[in-house]
Every structure is written in structure tokens, then in C-alpha cells.
């Protein structure tokens, strides 16, 4: 037993988090910043945070993750990090020559109260930022929210610094994809293009965190949203923000700044959420949904009808990020499965209500925990008390999966022990098909493994 000390009996905990279902803000900000073309993320704090964030992103994406740090020592912790940050700007522009430096804070710089916005302005005024180059920032104190909050804050920072309205509409639409994989961002672009629209997607990590092997290390790969596109977001017809937690804040900031209307939708994971996404774009942009998309949708529905018997009534436990879990839960319900236990460490007030409304007819007694002490230790205890057929969550779920002998489908962040997530989408109808394939394979492999010899099926 790997988690041999996890008791079945559930006791109240208010202060001790065990095996968290979230991590800290800056890593999200770093990931978002990598979705801008020519951008070097910068961590304002001591170098340890930056090393941890780079390592974790690298383990998940299996790609170079470049980022710099202000490298605080005790002195900077006492006297403030302004000198370090300005020194860092000068060194970074000279040595690594990015178009943009995207600064996020850490617990340390937040606690001492460094005003990064002010430091950036001062650096500008003193000519420490070369012409044509940019520095943007956001605040990411880790004692508030989670990695998703940090992602959201950096995307909002992009709007704050770059969005401009020229007074002329450019006929494009903005899509804020939320915390999804490079493959998902590619898939969202493909779907929207299929509808005849050229979107501005920001951030966009496709091309950056799934770059090809060429024998050369390209420090700033081809992908990423360009500065000119980020500026143009202010002239777009409307914005679709995917995910309340990760994307809404940036969408609303853009409305406030440039009067671009924003519609917040669930992440297009699964059938119905994708339907709403396609439908919304079709209505707002006045375009007809092309036959090709109807065909993709039909294929997905076809598989669901064909494989119903393997899905019906199967119980699932889930952990991860709120935006992802909401859409995923809805998808599982739509294929007649029973989400039974759900935790997310990322605080989000609307979470429990959303999940309950999605599941109320099927699992009225669902276990949900969100926020403080909503961790995988509790999830595991719930599973011990009420076993499930499937576990869906990040790599850390493998300990529970092994101990309880439940199949695990890796979904969310971080996934450090499998590949595929960066290359194959989970969003859209194609993504739903992939999820479905994984779920079915998990159940069928199980059935093949466990069936008696006389009932071992050739055709399934």
C-alpha cells in the first residue's frame, strides 16, 4: 500500500492539507506568459520558486520552459527587490533578447509589498527597457487562489498592457481558451477557422510547448499570440472567454477597457459544452455551422450510442481545476456515467452549485469539496467508503489508483508520467471522442483482464 496511512474513517480537518489538489499562482502565470510570442516569463522573488515552476511545467510538457528570476537573497527580502528586478531587465534584454518580459510576483515579493507596476514604470522612464520592447506584469500571491488564479491574472495582465481600441472594428473575434493544453488551443483554432472565422486566441501555447525537434533550440519558437494581435483584441467584434475561473477576468477587463462584449462559456469539453461553444459563435458571428462540424458531432454521438452499455451507471471520482471539472462532469453525465466524488483545491464560489445542478438528477448525494483542505487525501477516503469504477485526474492520482485498483485516466495538470496530452486535444467533438476512447479502453481493458476464461469476449 503506497498510501497506507490513509484511514477509511473521515475526520474533520481545518488546517492540514494532505496531498493537495492545486498548486500556487506563479506557475499559472508562467504558463500563460509562454503563450505570448517572443515572451520570457520572469519570476519576481527568490530563485527557488522559479526553479520549481519551470521544473513542473517541463515535466508536464517535456519541452524547454524558459523563465528568469530576480534571484532574491536575504538582503532583497529585507530591502525590497526593485534593484534586482531592474538589473534583471537589463541582463535579460541583453542576453536573451525577448520582445516581452512578463513579470509575475511570488509569495516573497508580495509579502514584502514590492510594487512591480511602479518598478516597471520607473524602468521605462529611466530608459532601462529598450525601445520596441515590452514589460508586462501581474500580481500572483500564492496565499490567494491557486495556479488557475495565476493563469487568469496573467491573461488579464495581457489585456491591461496591450489591448487597444482604434475605433475601427477588425472583424475578428477573441477567444480566451483558459488553462488547456497546446493541443486544445490548436483544436479551438481549427474549429473556429472551420467556421470561416480568423480568431485571436490568447494566450496560445501551441507551437511553443509542442515545438518540433529541429536540431536547434529556438529560444522563442514560432507559436504564441503576437503583440500586434494582443493589441488588436481591443478592436474585435466580441470575446469568448472559456472558463469562469481562468478566463472571465480578462474578458471583462477587455470589455471595460475597449468595450468589446464578452461571453463567458464553459470550456468546450464534451458534447454539450462544445455545442454551446459552436452555437454561440455561430449566432454572434452570424455564420452557419459548416457540414464538417456537424459530421464531427455526429461521429461522437454515434460512438456514444454504440458503446452505451459499457458506460451506463459507471461511477467516477474526479479531481482537478474547476473549469475543467465542470465541463467534464457534464460530459460524464451526458454519457450516463455517475460522477460520485469531486474535489478541487482551487477556490471558486460557484463550483459546488454548478456541479450540483449538473448532477442533481443522477447523483443527488454527490460528494463535493472545494477550497481549503479539499485535497486528494479526502478524495481517497471518500473512495474507500464508496468505491468507484474510474478515477480521473492528474498524475498524482496514480497512488490512489494503484492502492484501490481503479483505472486512472490522466486529465488536467500536471501529467508527468504519460504523453499525449500536449498533442491530442480534449476539447471539441474530436477531444470528446478521444476522452471517450480512453474511458472505454480503460473499462474494456479491465473487463479483459478480469473476466473468467469462459466469458472472455472476442468482440466487444
Amino acid at each position: 500500500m503506497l498510501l497506507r496511512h490513509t484511514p477509511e474513517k473521515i475526520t474533520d480537518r481545518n488546517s492540514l492539507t494532505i496531498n493537495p489538489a492545486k498548486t500556487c499562482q506563479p506557475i499559472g502565470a508562467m504558463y500563460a506568459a509562454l503563450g505570448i510570442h517572443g515572451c520570457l516569463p520572469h519570476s519576481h522573488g527568490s530563485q527557488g520558486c522559479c526553479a520549481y515552476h519551470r521544473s513542473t511545467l517541463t515535466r508536464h510538457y517535456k519541452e524547454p520552459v524558459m523563465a528568469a528570476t530576480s534571484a532574491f537573497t536575504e538582503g532583497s527580502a529585507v530591502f525590497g527587490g526593485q534593484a534586482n528586478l531592474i538589473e534583471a531587465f537589463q541582463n535579460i534584454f541583453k542576453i536573451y533578447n525577448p520582445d516581452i518580459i512578463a513579470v509575475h510576483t511570488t509569495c516573497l515579493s508580495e509579502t514584502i509589498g514590492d510594487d512591480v507596476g511602479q518598478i516597471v514604470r520607473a524602468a521605462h522612464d529611466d530608459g532601462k527597457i529598450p525601445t520596441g520592447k515590452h514589460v508586462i506584469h501581474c500580481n500572483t500571491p500564492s496565499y490567494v487562489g491557486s495556479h488557475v488564479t495565476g493563469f487568469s491574472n496573467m491573461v488579464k495582465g495581457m489585456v491591461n498592457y496591450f489591448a487597444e481600441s482604434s475605433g475601427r472594428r477588425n472583424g475578428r473575434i477573441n477567444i480566451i481558451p483558459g488553462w488547456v493544453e497546446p493541443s486544445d488551443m490548436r483544436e479551438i483554432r481549427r474549429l473556429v477557422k472551420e467556421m470561416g472565422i480568423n480568431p485571436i486566441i490568447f494566450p496560445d501555447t501551441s507551437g511553443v510547448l509542442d515545438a518540433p525537434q529541429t536540431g536547434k533550440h529556438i529560444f522563442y519558437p514560432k507559436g504564441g499570440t503576437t503583440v500586434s494581435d494582443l493589441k488588436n483584441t481591443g478592436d474585435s467584434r466580441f470575446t469568448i472567454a472559456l472558463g469562469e475561473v481562468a478566463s472571465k477576468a480578462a474578458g471583462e477587463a477587455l470589455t471595460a477597457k475597449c468595450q468589446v462584449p464578452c461571453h463567458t462559456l464553459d470550456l468546450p469539453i464534451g458534447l454539450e459544452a462544445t455545442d454551446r461553444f459552436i452555437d454561440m459563435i455561430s449566432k454572434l458571428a452570424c455564420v452557419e455551422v459548416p457540414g464538417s462540424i456537424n459530421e464531427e458531432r455526429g461521429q461522437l454521438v454515434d460512438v456514444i450510442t454504440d458503446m452505451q452499455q459499457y458506460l451506463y451507471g459507471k461511477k467516477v471520482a474526479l479531481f482537478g481545476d474547476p473549469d475543467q471539472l465542470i465541463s467534464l462532469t457534464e460530459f460524464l453525465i451526458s454519457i450516463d456515467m455517475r460522477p460520485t466524488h469531486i474535489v478541487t483545491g482551487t477556490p471558486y464560489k460557484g463550483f459546488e452549485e454548478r456541479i450540483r445542478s449538473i448532477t442533481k438528477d443522477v447523483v443527488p448525494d454527490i460528494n463535493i469539496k472545494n477550497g481549503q483542505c479539499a485535497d486528494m487525501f479526502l478524495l481517497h477516503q471518500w473512495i474507500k467508503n464508496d468505491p468507484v469504477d474510474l478515477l480521473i485526474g492528474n498524475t498524482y492520482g496514480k497512488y490512489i489508483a494503484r492502492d484501490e485498483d481503479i483505472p486512472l485516466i490522466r486529465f488536467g495538470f500536471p501529467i508527468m508520467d504519460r504523453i499525449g496530452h500536449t498533442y491530442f486535444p480534449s476539447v471539441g467533438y474530436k477531444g470528446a471522442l478521444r476522452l471517450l476512447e480512453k474511458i472505454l479502453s480503460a473499462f474494456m481493458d479491465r473487463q479483459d483482464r478480469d473476466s473468467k476464461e469462459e466469458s472472455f469476449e472476442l468482440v466487444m
Partner: protein
Amino acid sequence: MDNVSSKNNNFNPTAVKDELLKIYPVKVLRKRSKSIVINDNEATPEIQANVRTIPGIISQRGCSYAGCKGVVLGPTRDIVNLTHGPIGCGFYSWLTRRNQTRPPTDSSENYMPYCFSTDMQENEIVFGGEKKLRMAIQEAYDLFHPKAIGIFSTCPVGLIGDDVHAVAREMSATLGINIFGFSCEGYKGVSQSAGHHIANNQLFKHVIGKNDQKHEGKFKINLLGEYNIGGDAFVIEELLKRCGITLVTTFSGNSTYDQFANSHMADLNAVMCHRSINYVADMIEKKFGIPWIKVNFIGAAATAKALRKIAAYFGDAELINRVEHVIADELEAVRLAQEDVRTRCAGKRAMLFVGGSRAHHYQELFKEIGMEVVAAGYEFGHRDDYEGRAVLPTIKVDADSRNIEELDVEADPLRYEPRRTVEQIETLTNSGMEFKDYDGLMNDMAEGSLVIDDISHSEMEQLIDIYKPSVFCAGIKEKYAVQKMGVPCKQLHSYDYGGPYAGFEGAINYYREIDRIVNSRVWALIKAPWQKYPELQACYTTA
């Protein structure tokens, strides 16, 4: 860059160094130039090490917390390691160092797969987090009833002034178990190294010497600075057992609280990773009279040497004999593997930029298969790790190191017992045994090779461009950038999820691993056939 390397691959190290520095602003250039030295075997040059990392430079380094909680305490299975701080630090150090452990029974304590955190919120940052910490300790105790709880401070904890040591004392008195704190806030010192030191101090103050139980066995040693990545410690444990040597404790791979508490009952400390743990070796010697020697179980020759050194220390004919037998048993397989792998690897170039001792130890393995190490350096070494302990008296202590507590250690009034008399030590020394000594990495590197402390990303890419090594050893942050350059990268922190590499068996694993890496077909497949020709060939259909 023509003067950097001539056509026959005789690199001009001075030109290479200039090339690495050229891109820097003047101030940075001045500082970095002292951390990049050209090895000279006659007169070991002075290297600048253990100094602050330059902001914006992109370094390999982590922080004090990582060195303390992650490296030293992480591999102990029965201490509840509780991170006091916001969630991130605890999350990132959760299982990622892959320290393996083997609890004796299915019900034995093993907290390693768990991550414990106080997950501090804004409220605690504003009003203080001691109350939450106290409650978290209570909750951990109620759930697990561990023997000991360690509390690890993160950056904001130090800033808001939570007194983790006071909380530890108080809760220890209430619960009646050993609870101790570590002031290992990330900003302390300049790298992980500060954290190692802090961990060593607290282990020494709060754990070592707490259990006087005597051991059977004639030859009792502790292994220090071995963290059981990829099962290294298992291999060494097995080897020692075959030789008849009793391992009292390993600091800290596959270790337990009680073993730490009992470690002062050994008769010799054998130190593997000098950087992370020499403090404990020194302190145990002062307090309990146990001498220490430097050993290395990475590399077949090094392993044989280490075993012989330990046997020579005890000076027992039977032990010496057994050790020789074990070595002889193993060496044939090693020789065959070396011969085979050499045919495909000899003459190839390697670089190692990692850790505080690994960048030295792993050079042995490359030499054994005929590979040349052209450049190496540490992520968080000190001058003594490069130049040898002889330079210790000349090292200037700067403000960042001065902030780390130095314990005043005295001989224990009751339990100090020199394991060897002055005469014995002298005889052993005369016969070549070096006590309390370490020669450092530079002494083992070739004339003219480059030694670089705290290498920056920019320096790394240029080095690879110039030398085109066949393999580059580093960590996860460097791995994929190096590989994108068409050069395989072997991770030496995590072993790329392979190993073990210690001992004879490990050496063979490593030879084979390097053989696979440098000779893998994929590196030749990076370019598509049509990208290999400089010009497009005339196309038939256009005619």
C-alpha cells in the same frame, strides 16, 4: 568563432571562455569571469562559487527550502514533513526527487507519498500563521501518531515572523513526540546549499544522539550524503552487507528517524556527497569522536576504492579479505561491460552540470568507458568542492552564508569516545588514508577543461555549440533545451527514471545507459531526407 576550436578539435579554452562572456553586460562579465576557470593541474586555480546568482541570468539553482526539505529530509520515511507556507512549495517537493524507500513490513510507517502543508491563506499572512500551524500539527498527530514531525518554513513565514521553533517546542511538550522546525526560507543563502546546512544543523540538534542502543556487528559505519535516487542506496547496502560491514544509518536515503537518532553509535562516517552533508560529519566527529572519510560509490573503480578504504580503516584481516573477494566477484562482469561499451563510446565527449557532488562523481563512470569530460561544474558547490578542502581556511564568508547558523559543537561529556587513537590515526594517515579530506573536482579533471560554477543558460548553449558533446548531463530544466540542440541530455538528479548507478551493478547500468543514449538512432533522424541537401534538385515534372 574560428579561434575557439581548431579543425582537429583541440579547443582553445581561453578563447571559449571569452566567447561565453562576450554577450554579457560589463558588470555581469566581470562577475561571471571569476566563476569560469580553465583547469590547471599544476596550480589549481581559484574559482568563485557559492555567491549570489545574478538576477535575470537563468540559472539551474533552486532554493534553501529545496535543499532542506527536498534533499536532506525528504528521503526519511517515518518523519511527517510538514511544509509551513502557501501550497506551492509543498506541492513541488512532493515525490519529485524519487527517493526510494523500503519499509520492512506492509504496516511500517512510510509518509513519503504524502505531502503535508498548512496551505497558508491571506489571513494567515496578515495575522500570522502560528495558530494554523499548531492546529495542523495536532491534526497530523491525531491522524498518524508519528514519532516525529519536521516543520519547514517557506519565504513568507520568515517575513511575517512566525516562530516555528517555538511552536515546535510547545507542540512537542503537548504531544510528547519529537517536533522540530527548520528556518529554511527560500531566500536564505544563495542556493539549495544553505538548506542542506540548515537541515544538518537541526538533525544534529534534535535527532542525532537520541538513541544509545548498541549494535551487533564489528564494523559499524554510517553512510552520509547518499539519497537513494533510483535505488542507489539499496545497492550499496547490499554490498556492505556482503562485506560484513554494518550500516547503522544512511543520511538520508532509505532512512528512518531511529537510525538518525542512533547514528552516533557507529565507528566511522563515510561521506558520499560532500557538499550536502559534510557539516554532519564534522559535528559528529567533534561531539562523539567518530572520524570521517570521503568515499564514492559511483564508478566501479571508485566503489572498489571506497570498500578498501573502509576495510583499511578497521584494519581487520578478515574484513580486508572479504572485501577483496567481493570486489573480485564483481570486477569480471564490470570489465566485460566496459570492454563492450568502450567500442562504441570511447573518445566521445561529455559535460556535467549538476548538483554539488554528482558533477564530480559521475566523471568516474565516463572515464571507465573511455569518454572525455570537457567541461563540468556545480549548481551549488562551494570552493572546497572544486578546489579541495585545503582551501577551507582561505574561503571568505560573505553575508549570505553568515546568516546560516554555525553550531558550536563540543565533545559530549559522557559519550565522546575517540574511535581511533591519535597514533592509530597517524599510522593510517601515513599509509595513505585521508581523514576529513576531499580533493575536489578540479583535481580529477583534465588540464585545460572548463570548470564553471552556477552555469547560466546562455553559457550552456554556447558550450554545447562549440564542443558539440555527445552527452550533456544536467537536470529537468535543461533537458529539453539541450535535446532540441540535437544533443542527448542525461538527467543526473532523477537519473531519467533509471538507475541504480551506484556500486558495480550500477556502473554496468550506467555504461549501458550512456551507450544507448549516445548511439541512439534518433539523433541521426532529426533532418528529413529532403533537408539534407543544400539545394533543391531539378524537378522532372516542371520540364
